[in-house]
């Protein structure tokens, strides 16, 4: 609570089950590989303050369950996300094939300006690769995504992925392309006193209930 930051970005980590989303987050937050991880139930949460271009940005990251049955729970977290990491497993073709669906979900449910970074995880298992770098970058290019290959196990590119995404958002704020004041932008100013002003005004006043 005591920490201070300039911006708060709401991030999402999405992608098919088993693509390593939770490990990616764990690696980013704890700088450790979590090798005993089980399937995520619903959503998990992690936050970290990073320094991007001289600004300190608090990332509020929602790590969603990849399993289909949690979709109804996880979808509600899409709203108002400023950035998303769309994760697939380079050793599993299925997870790559599902990307289009995930992407459309993200585009429709989250803020329309959401910055999405495509992440090909498990780069350390290059021998079992089923999705080539080229193919994935073509997909990224076609869908206007940024693209990185990472390894949650070795930590390669993990921090970069989050930083790259944050950097892009920050740049868009500076150019005015993104407006942090807009509701559902997924961006908040770090100043805690002004943080909740909008929400207060927005509260629905119920109609007068009849007397009991």
């Amino acid at each position, binding site marked *: *609570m005591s920490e201070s930051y300039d911006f708060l970005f709401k991030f999402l980590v999405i992608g098919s089950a088993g693509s390593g989303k939770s490990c990616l987050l764990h690696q980013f937050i*704890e700088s*450790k590989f979590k090798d*005993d991880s*089980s*399937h995520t*139930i*619903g*959503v*998990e*949460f992690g*936050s970290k303050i990073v320094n991007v271009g001289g600004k300190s940005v608090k990332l*509020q990251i*929602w790590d969603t369950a990849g399993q*289909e*049955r*949690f*979709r*109804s*729970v996880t*979808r*509600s*977290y899409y*709203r*108002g996300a400023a950035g998303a990491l769309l994760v697939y497993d380079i050793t599993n073709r299925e997870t790559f094939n*599902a990307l289009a*669906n*995930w992407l*459309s*979900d993200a585009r429709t449910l989250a803020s329309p300006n959401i910055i999405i970074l495509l992440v090909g995880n498990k780069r350390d298992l290059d021998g079992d690769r089923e999705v080539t770098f080229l193919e994935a970058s073509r997909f990224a290019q076609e869908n206007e995504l940024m693209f990185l290959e990472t390894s949650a196990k070795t930590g390669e590119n993990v921090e970069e992925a989050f930083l790259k995404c944050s950097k892009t958002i920050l740049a868009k704020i500076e150019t005015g392309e993104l407006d942090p004041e807009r*509701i*559902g932008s997924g961006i908040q100013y770090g100043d805690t*006193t002004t943080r*909740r002003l909008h*929400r*207060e005004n*927005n*509260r*629905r006043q*119920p*109609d*007068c*209930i*009849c*007397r*009991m």
Partner: protein
Amino acid sequence: MDDFKHKFFFFINKQVVHSRSPAVVSLNEEAVRPPTEEGNPLHRESQLETRKTHEHDPLADQDILESIEPEFFNSESFDPCNHELKKLPAKLECDAIERDFQKLQQQQLVVSKKVLQLILQKHTTFNEEFARILEVQEELKTTLCVCKKGRSDLNLAKRQFTTASLGILANYRKRQVVQGLLHSLNTIKTLQRTEERLQELLSEGNYPRAIGLLLECQSAAATYRHFTCVAALSGKLQDTLEMAEEQLDQALAKVCSHFDADHYSKVQAAYRLLGKTQMAMDQLHMHFASAIHNATFSVVHGYVELCSGGSTLYKKQFKQLCESVTAESFIPCLVDLCKALWGIMRSYHQVISWHQRNDLEKLSADGVSELVDFEASFNKQYVKQKLGNGLVRIWHDVQARVSAYLLGSDLALYKSDDFLQVLRVVHRLIEVGEEFCGSKSEELQNSIKKQSSNYFCNYHRNCLEELRIFLENESWQMCPVKPDFTLLQLQEFRSLRHVLKSWKPRGDCLNGDQTTMTSPECSSSNHSQDSSSVTGGYFARYSEAGSPFDLGLDEVQEEDILANIGDEPSGYFSDESDEDIPDELKSDFVDENVGDTVSNKHSKPSSKKMSRREFVKAPILTNTTVTVLRQCGKYLQMSHLLRPIACEVIICMSQLFDYYLYAVHTFFTADLPVTSHSLYNLKLQASLKRIQDNLILPDPSQFAESDLDQSERTKDKVPQPHISPVVDLTQQETLHGLAERVVAVESVIFLAKQLEFLQSYLEHLQGGSSFLQQFFSQTVAVTGELCHPVYMHVSAYAVDFKGILSLMAKVNWEVKEVMSQHSHYVDILLRELQIFSMRLEEVAMRVPIPREVYVILWQSIFHLTCSTFVEGFSNAKKCSNGGRGLMQLDFIQFLSKLEKLTSVRPIRGRDYVENYVKAYYLPEAALESWVREHNEYSCKQLLALVSCVCQNNKKTRQRLIALIEDMEKVGSR
């Protein structure tokens, strides 16, 4: 005559003396010769005369002789001539002279004769005597010869024997002395040489021999003390001894870091030789103390240096140094610290066991001989005591160092896993301490308590903050879990599963596979409950190498907790349980969703396909509920490891629930009017008030920026949560978010149930404090009451009661005859209720709505509609009998349709309406008592009733109105 003889002898003697050696030879001639004085012619004449006169009468001779003047016999200085001359008279007379002459001549003759006579008389004797003299002379001569010979012989002997042999003797003696000296010198030389040998022995570590040798040398040196060189040598030996003792001391110091029985035996033997067994013990303890000091310092210093690379670090105190340890290196440093201390403690432990073993061996060795050396036994006693006391002291030192280290850093910002790791390490250390000296490690406990509560405060604050984020993002969707989900299936509870189950024999509420697992667990718990048997062997287990602290940080972590807590026997259970949640979840739902996942993976929420049966079975909970449960698991783990702050942890855990409860209440009752207090259970209301006061930050808009001093008070508080904008509670179609409300309320109830499941365990942890009892009875138990205020909104907006009221106002209640057709508003009301019911069914498709919720919803609708009926009827200023009949007809119509609409019974409020309507028919007197009795109606309703009843009787009306107004004033209503 005697005189003469005398004179003569004297003379002879004189002669002999005068011519000693020559006289001897010439003695004979002298003796023959007349004496010189008589050699003169006169003498000779007289001689002749004497001879001539010799025949004369001897008498005459005698006379003449006697006539001789005596002066003549005066031998000395008598001059006869002179004497005679003097005698001559002045007148010389020839005659006289001639007479004198004659006389003298005669006298001379007589004397000569007499002398001759005497000489002759004595001659033989003389000869005899002379021969004897010669004989003596001859003997003297031979004696002289003997003497001379003897002397020369003696000289020879002296020269030939004495000098030589004495020389030999002297030489012999000298040789012996020199030989002795040589021996001494050799010894001294050896002594000097020993130096090298000593060094050799010392470097070999053969201390007893070295000391023995040294002592031998010293005693040898003592015997040669009289040599000056030895004095210096013994000084040197003393130095060497001191040096050797110093080396011995160093060797003793080595024992601290690495105990080697051989080495230690040698050192002890050496000290025993020195007679310094006690001193060695004291010294050993000093070494242990400094070893602890140095080891800890160097470990921490190493880490600090690694991080900062500063050079002035050595000047820092240990405490300051501890403060400079960076967060990343804290744990490895702590582990290393513990390892280092472990090494020292292990050495000490081995020293003790060495002594015990040694004593035993000695006992068995000289067990038979009763005679025990007093000093030895005294030493033994001393050593035993000292070692016993040393345990506590060493542990105290260890504790102090680790405590200083722990307190030196601010652990508040650590990751929970890391902090748990720290706790585990310290916990392990405390166990080691327990085994080491039975200490309860209060200092360590205190510092860990301090750090823990410090850490925990911060951790808890973050948890609450995180919980707020979760709540504010919560969409109140049902989180699909398997029907028999309990918190025990969460990973966070993995280590607690067993304890929890043994605490609560509620096997029936858990599913089958868990009950089958109970038996191996139970047996294992019996093994591990005797914690001493498991942990008892730290010193035995790691006696050779390793330490209880060199577990890999990550991989063995799990096992580590288990070992610490002593719940689970092995990885057997945890390995399986790792996967058991997702697997079972899958088996429950994936089967159902196979078609769905294959056909269109992303288009539809899968829950729509769930059958109603599944709904009823599955517990309703949200993502946030799971999060809270996970946190509870973590808190429990902490309280387990941190018994001292267990109370605090549990209180904080209750705050998680409080906050969740409070959030649900705030989110879903915000749309309630303030006047609806009657909906609240008193306990629930008190609990909510308590939560708001204790946990929730005042609204920032009310809370002025300048009140900085309030920050202290609000430090542990959380801001008011705000419902996620995703959740829409205004849509009539969704019954004002009924689905979300159900999920929210049910999730709190589920949470409450899970907590109740933990209750007895928590009470055990907290040690019977009243806090928990209060928490459970005041807050957890009344959670279910939350449904009333939460669902009220749904019911309240199910029907447009205002519209109904206005429709009712339009009804003409002054109809003359009894109507056969009910009023139109009843149809409208029923249609709206029908819509509500349909929507309810729709919602129930998405979320399982528990029966109780139906009941609550319908009951409040009953309540509301009945109130509306009464209110609507009371709005009628005037009313005829026919109108009253219509009211009854309307209500009966409503009831009969309603009974088809819902299965919820009884329809409460029925009497409320009917009584009100029927009161119209009461006689005036009865009406008064009725008014008195029925205070459930409002003043306005009663007044309306009275004015309808007494339309024509103004007096009664006035009286009753006065009565009602009085009652209103007195507040009896």
